């Protein structure tokens, strides 16, 4: 048997449960307790597309060094689901650990020789203490948290404090849960030695907050001044609209009248959702919808209208596993092309790629300024991993001197002054025309909005040259967008290298870790995190500076790579796709392996490992 893994504040724990059994809250407690000990944590929920009774997992990465992407592999498995026992056991690293409910004996062939097995009679402990079936179900979860606390050396005071906060309004539950926690903890203290996986107080969490991207984006919409939201439930985007609703109630209720400074409509479907958003945008309110792949497919026609009639709109696409209904509770970055070139005819739409909840907040707020400035649909591309998992991220911040940028709108005074108004006139040469809002002026500035071709003064026209001029102006506008999209973030290797890597969105954390791993192998890459589309010159300069650029994505077809080639005229030979698309978040190991292997093939290892 390999030596049991010995690690402090740096390991992966995975819980295998059945959904609907209340495990989510216990597992969350476990993760949060580690955070409160000052140790950075990332937790990822892998859940089925149903409500009750199917397998669900919760993977906790503990990393004092702050590697919060998925690493790959499991050091300690908490195997609570007999249905998935075999593959759960198989996933444990050699030398790893297993915690299981030993109430019912299991034959030895159900275990592995190269792991350390800790059997705790959870059900037995639980049933001895509780009678009510629902209570039994819930408390069993808290008992295993107690067991883990003992095994890993978790500070019980932290857990007790958390339970106190969680059930603040129901003090009886606090005591009950603490008791259950100690039932588990004491059993282990009495029967086992602690593991060589250890937790220890630290100070690496700092002022970071622990929040999911949908919540952060919903809050960002409030700060971005969005006042109309129309949406249709779909996993994994639903909680974005729900967060917006909660924050609006908190921050946007008129203190005097108790009335709402916002309107949120659960529409009948995605087509209606985007229609409402476009109607509101046309009428001068900031509006958004949130959805996932199937919704983006349904919104295509309206997105084309927004492009051509130039109506601001914001769509949050919290991406899940496609195509079709696909893997609705898994993560992917596979709607990039669908969004960037949404709709028939020649169209292009700006995209933002937040890397974490912190940027979800920032980019959500920014999206409304950009949509107003560019008068078009802007997509904020989240994914299930960012959107639905709690991430440790920089605290939300807001500069109170910041003003909402409403873009080019002519008001009553402008019109009254006799300024020429042509809805599709390129006054400043940046391709962005002025608009007026309905109701502004009794006799000036009214125009008829349509998805058909028309001249700069918004009059219907079927003339070829008029059409071409307008389409070329739209390209100019897209050029303008390049300077407005957040610039890419470059991170050069410590050693000079001709190898580069481009990545985006939720890949970010695993990528950082992979770059470190590769560096230790003597494989250095300059890295560029792309934060939006259209790409600025800096992106293409980066590519030009490197011989090979790995493009790391979570989809099958290398969709961002397509955009890079197509928009930048880049030779595809230069862009090496690194593609992870099984629906689980990409891991540092995967990236390091894939890139390392390719670099090895090309003998691109510049120096020996340190």
């Amino acid at each position: 048997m390999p030596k049991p893994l010995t690690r402090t504040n740096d390991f992966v724990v995975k819980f295998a449960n059945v959904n609907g059994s209340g495990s989510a809250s216990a597992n969350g407690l476990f993760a949060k307790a580690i955070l409160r000990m000052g140790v950075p944590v990332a937790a990822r929920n892998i859940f089925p597309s149903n409500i009750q009774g199917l397998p669900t997992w919760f993977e906790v990465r503990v990393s004092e060094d702050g590697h919060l992407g998925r690493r790959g592999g499991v050091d300690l498995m908490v195997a609570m689901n007999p249905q998935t026992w075999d593959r759960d056991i198989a996933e444990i690293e050699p030398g790893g650990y297993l915690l299981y409910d030993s109430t019912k004996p299991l034959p030895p062939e159900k275990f592995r020789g190269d792991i350390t097995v800790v059997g705790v009679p959870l059900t037995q402990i639980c049933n001895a203490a509780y009678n009510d079936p629902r209570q039994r179900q819930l408390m069993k979860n808290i008992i295993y948290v107690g067991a883990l606390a003992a095994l890993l050396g978790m500070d019980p005071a932290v857990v007790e404090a958390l339970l106190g906060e969680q059930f603040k309004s129901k003090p009886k539950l606090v005591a009950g849960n603490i008791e259950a926690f100690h039932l588990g903890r004491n059993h282990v203290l009495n029967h086992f030695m602690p593991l060589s996986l250890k937790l220890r107080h630290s100070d690496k969490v700092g002022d970071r907050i622990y929040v999911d991207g949908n919540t952060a984006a919903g809050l960002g919409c409030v700060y971005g001044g969005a006042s109309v939201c129309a949406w249709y439930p779909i996993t994994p985007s639903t909680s974005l609209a729900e967060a917006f609703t909660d924050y609006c109630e908190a921050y946007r209720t008129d203190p005097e009248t108790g009335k709402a400074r916002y309107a949120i409509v659960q529409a009948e479907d995605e087509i209606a959702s985007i229609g409402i958003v476009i109607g509101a945008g046309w009428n001068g309110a900031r509006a958004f919808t949130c959805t996932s792949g199937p919704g983006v497919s349904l919104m295509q026609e309206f997105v084309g209208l927004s492009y051509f009639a130039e109506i601001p709109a914001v769509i949050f696409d919290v991406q899940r596993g496609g195509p079709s209904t696909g893997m609705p509770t898994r993560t992917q970055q596979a709607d990039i092309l669908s969004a960037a070139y949404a709709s028939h005819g020649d169209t292009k739409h700006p995209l933002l790629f937040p890397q974490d909840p912190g940027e979800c907040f920032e980019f959500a707020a920014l999206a409304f300024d950009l949509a107003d400035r560019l008068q078009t649909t802007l997509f904020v591309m989240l994914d299930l991993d960012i959107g639905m998992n709690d991430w440790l991220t920089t605290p939300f911040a807001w500069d109170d001197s910041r003003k909402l940028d409403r873009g080019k709108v002519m008001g009553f005074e402008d019109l009254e002054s006799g300024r020429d108004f042509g809805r599709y006139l390129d006054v400043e040469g940046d391709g962005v025309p002025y608009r007026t809002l309905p109701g502004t002026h009794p006799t000036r500035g009214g125009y008829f909005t349509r998805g058909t071709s028309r001249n700069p003064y918004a009059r219907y026209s079927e003339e070829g040259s008029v059409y071409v001029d307008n389409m070329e102006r739209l390209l100019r506008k897209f050029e303008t967008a390049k300077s407005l999209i957040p610039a890419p973030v470059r991170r050069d290797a410590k050693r000079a290298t001709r190898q580069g890597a481009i990545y985006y969105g939720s890949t970010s954390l695993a990528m950082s870790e992979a770059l470190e791993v590769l560096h230790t192998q003597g494989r250095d890459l300059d890295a560029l995190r792309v934060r939006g589309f259209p790409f600025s010159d800096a992106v293409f300069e980066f590519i030009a500076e490197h011989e090979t650029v790995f493009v790391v994505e979570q989809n099958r077809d290398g969709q961002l790579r397509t955009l890079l080639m197509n928009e930048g005229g880049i030779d595809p030979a230069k862009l090496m796709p690194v593609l992870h698309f099984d629906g689980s978040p990409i891991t540092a190991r995967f990236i390091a392996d894939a890139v390392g292997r390719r670099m090895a093939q090309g003998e691109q290892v510049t120096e020996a490992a340190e």
Partner: protein
Amino acid sequence: MTYILKPQLHHPKLPANALGFTRRDYEGSVSTLCAGCGHDSISASIIQACFELDLPPHRIAKLSGIGCSSKTPDYFLGNSHGFNSVHGRMPSVLTGANLANRDLIYLGVSGDGDSASIGFGQFAHSIRRGVNMTYIVENNGVYGLTKGQFSATSDRGSKSKKGVVNHDSAIDLVSVALQLGATFVARSFSGDKAQLVPLIKAALSHRGAAFIDCISPCVQFNNHTGSTKSFDYVREHNEAVNRLEVIGPRSPIHIDHEPGTTELVTQHDGSVLALHKLGVQYDPSDRVGAMTFLQQRQALGEIVTGLLYVDPEAQDLHDGLETVDTPLNALSDRELVPGAAALEALNASLR
């Protein structure tokens, strides 16, 4: 903010309304529809209604889908903003516009293809949400713009211009609107301006989802024998249940009908609907009764027209959502953005 400027009188001889606007101030571009198209008569009635109601043209927003009917907002209210959106989706765009600014008057114009075929879902849902709007379907039983195919309002058994017989059940938008909770429901005929203009006026003054199904023959593709939407057929089968007069909020009420035959309904904005009964006993405040009456009469082949239902106390979507009185598009940064202070507490709660 609402700015009301005195219009310049371009046509000093034309009669002006209380705002000083002439009928011409409510007109739009020259129609490009076929000569004789029913839709043009509806446009004229809309112009008339807005003129008579003294509406400031820029306080109206006109929205439509795609079709000959949906083109018409270009042909009236040239000073109003208009939005010719995509096929069948006017209701959602209008809903969004309405949410953004509750202070404007929203006029949705659609066709039977636009609303009963591709747009049936959006039609239904905008009605059941009680969006404050006037929703007019210019109903000709065909797709005019794509050259005369049956729409979902074509009656079973009616014949196309090419002689094909429709074998699907028709959708009766009026019955559906009643069932879905529309708080103002009427049917009229493009050929009967005397009936139509007051209905449009009443609908525009109604708070809530006001729906008018206006039969509007397509002279190009659906005005032949065998059609149940031709001028002749509609004239022969038209059964009006009442005649309406709309009396402005501050106008005196003179009724010159027989006592007992006129019912007065005061709308939310103070305008009064004087409903003159015609023959049949018909109570437009009874939703279930209206549905039953319609079903029975339609089974007999009648086309029931008039103000079929009105709930003057109706609530609209903004009431349901409890939105502030200020239009959402006019909220200040301060009212929209909670600011840095709020984040401190929030951050603390997320640690």
